[in-house]
């Protein structure tokens, strides 16, 4: 698996396809912290959203690196299609680490926050960035590693999916009946809701976390199934 991850990382870097999402991400973080004395958790909430969108983009690039014949050669060497998928996901997570660290430590180094960092701020910052990155990778995989990848409007559909997930709370407030539909979108608002400086680690916070955790596990299995179905 290590060799496959190296193969993917080298291929990804040499493709130079990381440049557009990385540049946009960096620009977003620079603009976010152009002002000083900003609140800690809500700023991290915004940078988590940046990471969510960026990781979707990176995952979509990662899954479109190989042509069919290259993929088939890799399947035979890895001896399983599941390993191929897991290798791709692990590569995305490795790519995520430096850009997540940048989002967390850039405002600390530049002294952009209106208060000092505390232990629970660090915990929440890492937690929200990691969860958003994972959700981004899952959305990217859905539109590039399953039957949806072959559809004409895969990229457009992915953007629509991301927008719906970010706007799902507003959608429910506008039309309550939508609450029966929006649960299919990644539950990013369940994390964002708690990213304010009057953060309380109450029951609702833990229930929301459990829901997000179950959502990630469940969608991972669905994606494995859809990927294997596409590569059947």
């Amino acid at each position, binding site marked *: 698996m290590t060799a496959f991850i190296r193969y993917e990382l*080298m*291929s990804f870097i040499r493709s130079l396809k990381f440049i557009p999402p990385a540049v946009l991400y960096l620009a977003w973080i620079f603009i976010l912290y152009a002002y000083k004395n900003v609140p800690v958790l809500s700023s991290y909430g915004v940078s988590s959203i940046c990471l969510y969108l960026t990781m979707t983009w990176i995952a979509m690039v990662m899954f479109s690196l190989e*042509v069919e014949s*290259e993929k088939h050669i*890799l399947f035979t*060497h890895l*001896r399983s299609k599941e390993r191929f998928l897991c290798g791709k996901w692990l590569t995305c997570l490795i790519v995520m680490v430096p850009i997540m660290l940048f989002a967390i430590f850039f405002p600390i180094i530049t002294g952009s926050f209106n208060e000092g960092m505390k232990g629970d701020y660090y915990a929440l910052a890492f937690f929200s960035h990691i969860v958003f990155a994972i959700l981004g990778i899952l959305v990217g995989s859905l539109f590039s590693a399953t039957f949806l990848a072959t559809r004409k409007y895969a990229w457009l559909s992915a953007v629509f999916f991301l927008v719906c997930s970010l706007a799902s709370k507003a959608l429910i407030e506008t039309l309550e009946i939508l609450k029966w539909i929006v649960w299919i979108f990644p539950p990013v608002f369940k994390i964002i809701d708690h990213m304010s400086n009057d953060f309380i680690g109450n029951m609702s916070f833990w229930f929301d976390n459990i829901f997000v955790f179950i959502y990630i596990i469940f969608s991972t299995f669905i994606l494995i199934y859809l990927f294997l179905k596409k590569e059947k």
Partner: protein
Amino acid sequence: MILFEAMNAGKQIDGADILNNITIQIAEGEKVAIVGHNGSGKSSLLKLIGGIYENTSGQVKREKFITGYVPEHFPENIRFTIKEYLLLIGKMSGKTEGEIIKVIYDYSELFSITAYLNTPLKNCSKGTKQKAGIIQAMLTPPELFLLDEPLTGLDEPAQKQMLNILNSFNQRTSIVFTAHESLLVDGLAERVITIANGTILSDEKKRINEKIYMIKAIVPNKEIVSTIDCVHMKYQEGNIIEWMVFAEQSDEVLIKLLNNGCKIIELKEKR
């Protein structure tokens, strides 16, 4: 031991039937050629055997085996040098760097590509890419070796080298390949599966002890083609056709060709 068994297996891609009612067995050590016209389903059958494709109907049984796969067209956009690529691929199969480097150099020498090992694959010629594509499948000695038109893009010495390598494989290695060239079919296959429109037309053991002659002739019209009983036939430029025929049938074929106004331009023993 049976490595692969299909019973009435079929494969659909985007609603189109690619393979239908495939019933075959591939045993350990068998050397099988899959022949057929372009688009007949040869490559899909090869992928079904190797597990790259799964059947969408019927039944398939596959033993666990180490597979080497050579695609028809080596991918164009690989972003590594030949050496980097082969090293990473070899490591994926769990071999150590030292072992892989030795195998890479051995095969590179055999295929005369040692000078290009540090050249990016993108900049290599079609033949060199094809050779790299063949070497990647042999880095770990495969138990089932699948080759899709492996001689495409290779020059004549490399084609003969390839045939020698395949013939030198362990007797227990099963080799399944698709080919248009008679060289591999005549020189390697013990069994020939003919496929058309995704269906197996024939599946026959070859008479390997018999001598084979190559007859090349200019034909006045193509009506004669269907009446010639041959092992393999290939259209060449103009009206030239090359036949591989069993020695015992060669006189009969020659008479038939001459009686039909064909001009014999070459006759030689192939095996």
